[in-house]
């Protein structure tokens, strides 16, 4: 634990707790709330201690900063996410010319893009970027 991240720990704990509470208020049982809030807080902790971010003590509520390499990885991951989303959307539209796909398939584009973004970020952090 780092002293300069005390505010970060508290605010992220609160955010995770609020999210878990929202899950509970929407009708899910308590175990589901714990299962939702806990990984969220663990991810916040992981991000802070992964070594992938600099800590800016002048901004206690948003202290994590990317360095030049992190920014390059973020930019490349965003490009991949946008390209995949565009291709997927185009494919769904073309498919819709031949079979009834409905609105449901198009709603997969955004989650797919988010998944591609985080996957590419993970791959590039591990494999390296030149």
């Amino acid at each position, binding site marked *: 634990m780092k002293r300069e991240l005390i505010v970060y720990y508290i605010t992220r704990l609160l955010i995770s707790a609020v999210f878990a509470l929202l899950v509970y208020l929407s009708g899910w049982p308590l175990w589901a709330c714990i299962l939702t809030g806990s990984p969220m807080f663990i991810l916040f902790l992981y991000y802070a201690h992964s070594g992938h971010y*600099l800590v800016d003590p002048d901004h206690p509520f948003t202290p994590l900063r990317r*360095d*030049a*390499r992190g920014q390059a990885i973020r930019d490349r991951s965003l490009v991949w996410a946008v390209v995949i989303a565009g291709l997927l959307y185009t494919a769904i539209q073309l498919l819709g010319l031949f079979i009834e796909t409905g609105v449901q398939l198009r709603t997969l584009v955004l989650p797919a893009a988010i998944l591609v973004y985080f996957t590419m970020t993970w791959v590039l*952090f591990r*494999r390296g970027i*030149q």
Partner: protein
Amino acid sequence: MSPAGNEKRLKNRVRELRIKAGLTQEQLGISTELTRQSVIAIEKGRFTPSVATALVLASALATTVDDLFWMEKKEHE
């Protein structure tokens, strides 16, 4: 793209000089505005720093960029 047989790769002495200076990867990162993982990536040759970053690294390790980084010809089997 280099002609076949003339491929070179960037090598460095960041780890050697960091240890000699008694710095951890995190400490070197803080003094050069790099994350610990970026320092690791540079030391392992997985990330080529910008000129500015190379200059800052050399300064932090009390050496020159030429002494810190060099191109080495790849050996083909």
